[in-house]
């Protein structure tokens, strides 16, 4: 059963990834990205990462893909992207380097057995508590400082987004901000 789910989702994930790269229309690319993100959530669920799978659906598959689609509709589908490469070496080189990268990563991941000391931070789940509680305990004890920094990072990102969107909108009419 696990193997069936894995292979079905693996094929869907690779098809989605290829669709993102090969899709001529950015909207199609975004929808293929959604396919890959949802199958990733299935993989997370299969590996006892319940909270991460839910966050993947809520944040990635919902918020980020909707943000992409929103920007695509805001800008209009960019039909002017030509698939003729101005630099004739770029595409073959990209594929060659991609193949090299794939071979390297697979050798690195598969040749060696998984080593390392288990449970540096804590075991994945104790029988008494679920995955959510275990992950929350790790986040709010061992990773508390990093967790606080993510809050700062998100605030900076929001402020940066507002500043970028606002300033460029004001540029054509100088001094309009002063009147308001």
């Amino acid at each position, binding site marked *: 059963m696990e193997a069936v789910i894995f292979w079905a989702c693996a094929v869907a994930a690779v098809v989605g990834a290829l669709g993102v790269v090969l899709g001529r229309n*950015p909207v199609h690319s975004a929808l293929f990205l959604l396919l890959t993100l949802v199958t990733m959530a299935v993989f997370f669920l299969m590996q006892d990462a319940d909270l991460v799978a839910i966050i993947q659906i809520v944040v990635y598959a919902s918020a980020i893909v909707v943000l992409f689609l929103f920007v695509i509709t805001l800008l209009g589908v*960019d039909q002017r*992207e030509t698939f003729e490469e101005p630099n004739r070496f770029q595409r073959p080189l990209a*594929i060659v380097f*991609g193949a090299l990268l794939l071979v390297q990563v697979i050798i690195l991941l598969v040749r060696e057995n998984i080593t390392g000391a288990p449970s540096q931070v804590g075991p994945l789940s104790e029988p008494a508590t679920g995955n959510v509680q275990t992950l929350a305990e790790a986040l709010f004890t061992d990773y508390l400082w990093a967790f606080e920094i993510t809050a700062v990072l998100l605030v900076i990102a929001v402020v940066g987004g507002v500043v970028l969107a606002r300033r460029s909108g004001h540029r054509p009419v100088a001094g309009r901000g002063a009147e308001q």
Partner: protein
Amino acid sequence: MDITPAYYLVLAAIIFTIGGVGLLVRRNTLVMFMCIELMLNAANLTFVTYAKALDDIGGQAIVFFTLVVAAAEVAVGLAIIVAIFRRRQNVTADDVNILEG
């Protein structure tokens, strides 16, 4: 047939590579962004796989932070794309060639 961690790791490597090649090949900045998301997700899958294999909750905690960074990156990146579009009316990577050194 048993699904070992190696299957997940190879799948993550394949998706990471597809994302990387797409980033190099495509010229539409929005699609390039989506390829970056693919690469981040492949890395997340590797983290979750190792968390399971080593029985360590730390791997999943890192994925949580990666998701936060990805969300922040998308928010700022899309704002930059919108800002470029307002000036240039186009968002392919060749349109920002003024950034070349």
